[in-house]
């Protein structure tokens, strides 16, 4: 207890110290290293702290009463919180290291002090959100997290576009917060306290309607933060606008805090129990999860901005996490505990995986952007020769996120698919069939995700440079590569040894653990007691490597030593093959746009400039293929315009005529008097 307390305190103090140090810092590379040292150390402390809590199984509690009359500052780190703190710790450790090199870019433009300050406070607020055990302080830290991340999003506030993205983000997240607030308020009404402890104890006794409302509000609120469709509009704007180290934190960690909130509310505060009454909660999650997955990935595959594509991919992955979570809820409500555990493991495994590979990919993208100064992959290409490390690490991330063996993405997707398959145990035909159909978008998502990352990786790193942005560049600094390598190693490790992840999750969430050693096969039983599915990744890796060695030897023996000649790519004999003949990102994804044209509504925008009046004498013509953003155009735009319409009506009240003003007073007075008079009925 005291040890954990010291660790936790030390971590928090270090973040604060880092923030202050950041404010005081000046622009030399030495202070840059020093300013990012506190968060690095603090992150390590967090990792130790949270893993000790998970391993010991004892939660850490701390209450500081009395700073405000009605709200105690309460901290509770149980297994679930510790799990998410672990994610925060690992990712922020890598990102802090990465930032040492990365923030150099910002030195040229302006002081990094605000960046360091906000960076520290941002991580700190995430930790405190997860650790909070009081609704009021939860919301305070929650909004602090939104606020600091908002400032980081608009860090480059020279660009009008970034300000707009930031505003969208802030407003959406605030909207989400109000829903969370409403959800907590319902708990408060029922229990008369804002302490999470009382929610926890009282929630079982809530009326069913209240339970449902608590869930729905939390679902909308936290779903907004997690970037769930259709509340995702902020995410693809905000994440790319932020400096890349912050994008990494936002995408890898912050949206997981939304997932954390959802889990916390559902399992702790909403009175959720093993009753079919709650099955629809899970179905809701599955429906929105699948929608997020498919929508996210569809936008990602046609996107040209590397960071935005990654952001869309975050939406997709959140969808996958939600599907797993939803399945877990459905299984729990039908008392299928074993499968509920499976699905929860799937969902949490994907959460931690996504933190790793998305952090890695954003950092990789940040490295690319920092040397090429463009986010548009149309202008990139061929970086693999100039940035071998970055490209290797990015490739690991890409393979992981595409769910390919033997890296971590495959494991969590395997779990999720197995959970989907397990739906045949549910004693309800309609749910069975709907979940089976939900696996269609899920599988489609995985397929398209692979295509997305083929495109992102290949268009950035492979073939020839398509513009001068991608020529004559250098590999990024060592600290950046180190930061990325940590997460890449984690990706590989969690893929090759899934035992790590499963035991971590089952200890943290107090689930019945499956395999007892790293080399045990993960196994799922079917009705007749036979094995439904098995997976033993370490053995798979052994097979792969031995096969590789064997085939290498075999080919070598069979073919003997042969020469390799380097020559130009085959050009059909015409010669002069150049980068303009290559496939560009847009042309690469053209078949996808064509197949899903119902969704994208692709169309060409033409800008013509002609000499003088004659429309036929064209000076230049620019044709751009654009896609329609159906959510913004058909969902948000009407809402906003109806609000503006209402505003317009209201402002006409303020006519500037004093007579009108007096008339309002008169009318109010008479109406109120009439109200009194008539309600009395003398």
């Amino acid at each position: 207890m005291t040890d954990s307390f010291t660790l936790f305190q030390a971590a928090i103090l270090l973040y604060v110290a880092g923030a202050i140090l950041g404010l005081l810092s000046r622009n030399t590379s030495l202070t840059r290293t020093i300013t990012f040292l506190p968060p690095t150390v603090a992150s390590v402390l967090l990792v130790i702290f949270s893993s000790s809590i998970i391993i010991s199984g004892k939660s850490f509690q701390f209450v500081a009463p009395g700073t405000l009359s009605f709200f105690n500052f309460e901290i509770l780190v149980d297994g679930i919180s510790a799990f998410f703190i672990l994610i925060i710790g690992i990712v922020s450790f890598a990102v802090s290291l990465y930032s040492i090199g990365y923030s150099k870019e910002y030195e040229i433009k302006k002081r990094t002090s605000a960046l360091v300050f906000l960076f520290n406070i941002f991580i700190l607020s995430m930790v405190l959100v997860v650790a909070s055990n009081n609704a009021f302080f939860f919301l305070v830290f929650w909004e602090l997290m939104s606020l600091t991340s908002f400032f980081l999003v608009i860090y480059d506030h020279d660009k009008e576009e970034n300000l707009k993205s930031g505003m969208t983000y802030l407003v959406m997240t605030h909207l989400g917060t109000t829903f969370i607030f409403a959800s907590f308020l319902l708990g408060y009404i029922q229990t008369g306290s804002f302490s999470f402890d009382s929610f926890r104890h009282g929630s079982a006794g809530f009326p069913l309607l209240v339970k449902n409302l608590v869930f729905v509000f939390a679902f909308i609120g936290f779903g907004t933060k997690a970037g769930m469709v259709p509340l995702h509009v902020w995410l693809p704007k905000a994440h790319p606008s932020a400096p890349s180290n912050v994008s990494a934190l936002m995408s890898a960690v912050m949206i997981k805090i939304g997932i954390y909130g959802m889990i916390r509310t559902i399992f702790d505060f909403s009175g959720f129990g093993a009753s079919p009454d709650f099955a629809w909660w899970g179905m809701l999650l599955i429906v929105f999860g699948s929608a997020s997955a498919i929508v996210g990935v569809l936008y990602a595959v046609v996107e040209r901005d590397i960071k935005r594509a990654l952001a869309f991919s975050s939406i997709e992955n959140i969808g996958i996490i939600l599907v797993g979570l939803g399945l877990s809820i459905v299984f729990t409500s039908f008392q299928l505990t074993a499968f509920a555990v499976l699905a929860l493991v799937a969902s949490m495994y994907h959460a931690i995986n996504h933190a790793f590979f998305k952090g890695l990919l954003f950092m990789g993208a940040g490295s690319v952007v920092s040397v090429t100064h463009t986010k548009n992959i149309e202008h990139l290409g061929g970086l693999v020769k100039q940035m071998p490390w970055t490209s290797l690490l990015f490739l690991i991330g890409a393979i992981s996120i595409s769910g390919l063996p033997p890296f971590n993405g495959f494991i969590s997707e395997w779990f999720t698919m197995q959970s989907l398959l397990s739906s045949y145990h549910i004693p309800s035909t309609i749910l069975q069939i709907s979940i089976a159909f939900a696996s269609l978008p899920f599988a489609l998502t995985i397929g398209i995700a692979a295509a997305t990352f083929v495109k992102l990786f290949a268009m950035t790193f492979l073939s020839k440079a398509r513009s001068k942005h991608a020529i004559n560049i250098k590999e990024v600094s060592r600290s950046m590569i180190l930061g990325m390598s940590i997460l890449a190693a984690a990706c590989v490790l969690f893929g090759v040894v899934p035992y790590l992840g499963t035991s971590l999750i089952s200890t943290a969430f107090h689930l019945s653990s499956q395999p007892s050693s790293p080399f045990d096969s993960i196994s799922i039983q079917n009705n007749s007691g036979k094995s439904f599915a098995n997976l033993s990744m370490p053995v798979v890796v052994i097979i792969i490597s031995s096969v590789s060695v064997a085939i290498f030897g075999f080919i070598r023996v069979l073919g003997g030593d042969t020469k390799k000649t380097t020559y130009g790519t085959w050009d059909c004999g015409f010669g002069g093959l150049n980068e303009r003949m290559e496939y560009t990102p847009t042309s690469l994804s053209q078949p996808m746009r064509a197949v899903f044209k119902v969704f994208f509504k692709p169309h060409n925008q033409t800008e013509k400039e002609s000499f003088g009046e004659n429309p036929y004498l064209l000076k230049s013509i620019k044709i751009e293929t654009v896609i329609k953003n159906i959510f913004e155009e058909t969902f948000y735009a009407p809402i906003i315009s109806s609000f503006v319409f209402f505003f317009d009506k209201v402002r006409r009240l303020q006519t500037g005529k004093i007579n009108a003003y007096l008339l309002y007073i008169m009318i109010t007075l008479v109406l109120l008097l009439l109200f009194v008079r008539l309600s009395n009925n003398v």
Partner: protein
Amino acid sequence: MDNLLSDLTILFLLLPPIAGAGLVTVLKKKRTIGIITICAASLILIQVLFVVSKIVSEKTITAFGNAFYVDSLSAVILLSVSVVGFVAALYSKNYMGRQYDNGTVDDKHIVRYYQGFNVFLLTMLVVPIANNLGIMWVTVEATTLVSVLLIMLYFKENAIEAAWKYLIIATVGLSFALIGTVFFYYANINANNSEDAMNWTGMVHNAKHFDPNLVKIAFVFILVGFGTKAGLAPMHTWLPDAHSEAPTPVSAVLSGVLLNCAFYGIIRFHIISSVSIGPEFSNQLLVILAVVSIGIAAASIYFQKDMKRMLAYSSVEHMGLISLGIGFGGLFGIYGAILQIVNHAVAKPLMFFASGSVSQKYEAKAMSKIKGIIRVMPVTGILFLIGGLALVGMPPFNVFLSEFMILSSGFKSGQFIATLLVILFLVVTFAVFLRHLIKMIFGNPLSEMKKGEMGKLAIIPMVILCSIVVIFGIFIPAQLQTLIQNASTIISGGGFA
């Protein structure tokens, strides 16, 4: 002996502004009168702190027979008046100096300004401590007259227009308030109490015997009357004009505390009416007006072009929130409302000061001409930003706490529709307000501008307010907590803590 001490306490509270006004009139030197006013304001602040500490321990002070009566509720208002008065005096020195330098005002104006400022403070100090509700009304009316003079200091077209509207509307409104007051008085004599019938203490003691119908009508008049002065919609129409056209320190005082003073009147009569006929009736009316106010404020901010006007609408919103908290009732609601009074009094002047500095720097009030404040004047920019975030209820700043409590009590009291509407309006306000704010603070200035702040005396008041804004978000001193607690007990418990 005890009586004498109380008398002296009150006397020393009212003496500094009187002396200040007198000295200003006599001395007339531009330099000195600013300092005199600062001294007067700081004396007031010290004395108020003394009074408050006394109130915390003794709960009430009665002085000059029964003429002055100070309880925790009055103390809260006194505290906000004195703090804002002090920082406004500090800020005036710099602000009026600059206005003088760029030729907007001349020596005569400055003397008039400081005279008015002192008298203004005096009237606002009397409002919360007067036991006689007639005197309270007179002083509220007096605040109108003084502030009209302060608003039309500039003789600009817009200032005159604003002053005229303010004068007419506030006077009409306050005459309703007088009717309400007299009605209550009549109810009191009708209930056979002619002893101190006009005094608040006398009324509350006897309120149970009031005729219910009379109380209802009377409260309607009070609500419309003081509501006009407090800026509750739809009687708020003068407010954006007056607050935006006044000299900045005056705007700060008008918005920050004068509205509170007016709302204080409503609260007093709300207590009487609650004791008399139960709180449901007045709560209902307060909630209705509150929702209308918050809604209209939210909708109006979107199209604003002028920075100070936008802030004025935000005041309408905040008054709505106070009214909402009182209307929802319950410990959380009332506590939240009183906290909101304090928070508003801190955050709004901060914003007005910052906007004043900004418009002096940019020589514009139109928001479209102001960009990149954080580049041009970083400190003011950050203070402006924090103030703005606080105003829209962003944690970890103070207003969040009070809004949180008010909305909690809304759910608790079962008024879901009102609460949900208000939450919606608050989100809208959040969006539209910050949209304006962020466009001003960030980005690049439209033209090349020299980097620089407006001077230490402009920054210090803002820093003081800003630190309160930040600290009160997560920590409220125990003394103040007790004070607010007692004040809420006064409201919910029939007039006495």
